[in-house]
């Protein structure tokens, strides 16, 4: 199954320590950290949520490079958010760092277990089985009135790694999201350039050949699955903290569908693409809600069709195409 034309990463020479993508990532980090505090609050919040979603989609990018599309990312996104929320709800812990660690840990732990099963699946069956798991979580949460059923519950944060957030809560949360997204993107970039990371595209192009080479396809897929789940968990934790509320909707299939939407919109050409895709998606959606409350679905759907038709490599291909020209 090919989501993209044979990947660019294969054509690129092995990445040295500092390459263009790394430079861009650092540049984006500096700019975002500098610009964040002077942005209007709505824009800062939208960026905050978009970057968190970008982190989730970054995990999907890894799976897509491996040739797998998950319609059940909501499972880990929701687990991450509920892990953070439960710490606050049941134990009164209100530390961002602890919560995020829990988000990642819970999502990754569940992924390790489910990964044994899912690593055997491909194509639409991988998509559907992951969707089934995510919908089971949704059903369980809806049934759990101790967790507020469909209404969910609220959470709030007070400290980050022990330091009080105080007045600067929003700014610090934004900076935290930026840093987490940066680390995730940089880590993913390094991983994709590593031997194990390169196997991903190889598996997508031809599994059998990878096996002949002596690598274990299932192990690579399993590892990539866990990484992608951990990122989804981190994204879920970040969103849960930013919103201050978690509910089962996060595990519903439409949530996962939106992540796939963003991933296709963005393209898998670069680790920066998911973040750009998420920002554009959220901006289009927000303005469509406001200026055309009756037809925002029409606008989103049309946008998606146009991107698929005219930019098959996703929005990111605008940049690469210009470069080639």
């Amino acid at each position, binding site marked *: 199954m090919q989501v993209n034309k044979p990947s660019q990463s294969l054509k690129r020479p092995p990445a040295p320590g500092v390459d263009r993508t790394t430079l*861009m990532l650092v540049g984006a980090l500096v700019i975002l950290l500098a610009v964040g505090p002077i942005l209007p609050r709505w824009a800062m919040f*939208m960026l905050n949520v978009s970057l968190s979603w970008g982190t989730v989609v970054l995990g999907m990018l890894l799976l897509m490079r491996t040739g797998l599309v998950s319609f059940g990312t909501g499972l880990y996104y929701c687990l991450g958010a509920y892990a953070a929320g439960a710490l606050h709800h049941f134990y009164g812990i209100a530390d961002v760092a602890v919560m995020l660690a829990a988000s990642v840990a819970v999502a990754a732990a569940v992924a390790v277990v489910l990964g044994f099963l899912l690593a055997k699946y491909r194509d639409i069956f991988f998509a559907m089985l992951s969707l089934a798991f995510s919908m089971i979580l949704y059903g369980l949460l809806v049934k759990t009135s101790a967790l507020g059923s469909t209404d*969910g519950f609220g959470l709030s944060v007070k400290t980050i790694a022990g330091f009080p957030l105080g007045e600067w809560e929003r700014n610090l949360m934004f900076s935290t999201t930026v840093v987490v997204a940066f680390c995730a993107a940089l880590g993913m970039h390094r991983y994709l350039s590593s031997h194990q990371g390169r196997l991903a595209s190889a598996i997508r192009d031809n599994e059998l050949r990878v096996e002949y080479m002596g690598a274990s396809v299932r192990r690579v897929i399993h590892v990539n699955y866990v990484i992608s789940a951990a990122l989804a968990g981190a994204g879920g934790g970040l969103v849960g903290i930013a919103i*201050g509320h978690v*509910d089962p909707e996060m595990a519903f299939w439409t949530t996962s569908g939106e992540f796939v939407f963003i991933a296709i919109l963005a393209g898998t050409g670069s680790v920066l693409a998911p973040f750009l895709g998420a920002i554009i998606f959220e901006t289009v959606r927000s303005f469509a809600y406001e200026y055309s409350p009756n037809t925002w679905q029409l606008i989103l759907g049309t946008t998606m069709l146009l991107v698929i038709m005219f930019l098959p490599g996703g929005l990111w291909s605008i940049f690469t195409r210009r470069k080639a020209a």
Partner: protein
Amino acid sequence: MGKMFVRAVAGLALAAVAAYSGAADAQQKRDKIRIGFVTFLSGPAAGPFGVPARLAAEAIVEQLNAGKVPAPYDTKGFGGAPLELVVIDEAGGTTKQVSEFRSLVSRQNVDYVIGYISSGDCLAIAPVAEEMKKVTVLFDCGTPRVFEEASYRYVFRTRPHATMDAVAAVRYLLEMKPAVKTYGGINQNYAWGQDSWNDFDLSMKALKPDATVTTSQMPKFGSGQYGAEISALLQSRSDVIHSSLWGGDLEALMMQAVPRGLFRRSQLILVAGEPYLHRLGANMPDGTIVGARGTHGVFAPESTLNTWLHKAYRTKADHDPNYPAYSVALAFLGLKAAFEKAKLEQLGGKGGKEEMEKAPGVGPGDEQLIAAFEGLSFDSPSGRATMSLGKGHQAVMGTAYGTTKRVGGKVTVTNIKRYPAEAVTPPEGMSSPDWIKGGMKK
């Protein structure tokens, strides 16, 4: 490629800064009062609740701006300043709604927000409104958790919470049919359906301990096919069947259950049945106990305000206003009453309509508005509401139930019984489940 990205980011930042400085200007003027109005425009809640609410909001704003609302609301707009609505779709879940709320407040610069039908959205929005210090009136969501689990300064709810729906249903049922032995339920499997059934079940256990539960059916929200559920209910042979279904789900249940004779076997209670009286017609069996989640719609007492709402709503729709429309009226009129009370104090405590309309640009700050709103009593088409719970932020009203009876092809409601607020709502500082378990003492 790097340059492009840097340029894009820089452009975005510049645009944002520009928008921000523009926003700062807009906030100082008060020639118009901008109200963000959030309601379902798509999805299953749009038809029965969301769109009637929007129509009501538009009608009320037009009437307020024209100064056509009966006294004491005859001052134009809010204290002479005309209103402007910014309508947003509530669909999409809490994550999007929190984002949208923030945009409403800091991008659209609305002065106040009125909105939210879904309880989940209310629970998520309230802390954000508090953080952003934006006076927000929740108009239709029912969960008691909003003010029982937290307290807010900037958040108000002008309709009573949902505990009374179940408690009054039980009180009415026991008055009408004191010999009830068995009861079952069919409720949607999400927070409203579960809470509604739990409250009903707890209230029955408190007031009629010898009655037993037969079956509690919890179909998925929006499932539409109730064949198996109806068979299970038929076989349960319950004296009473409780249901909090609404919208298309309720209509589908009635269409499928009535031909199968379910309600010849069991007494049906529809907690939120009022909006469908005119729609269900032949499919609404005589003798069904219905409520309107408050003294709205057919349960609203006769008054000039009630007549006015009917007329105003009829300019926008071809049917009478249902309970969401009444909830909207409560929200707008409550906020207006508080606003004008604060404005009069600001003007020196004397004068009235003329003085306020002479100074449309003058308006109270949020602190004065909140002080005026807390504990306020105000009239509405549904009767008088008092903001007496949640430290003066949660309205309390009585409620009513009735029994359907078809008269000449039209469904009417008879045997209406009214319950004062104290009989159906827990007092301040007590959670709803505790109060019900404790026997619902005043």
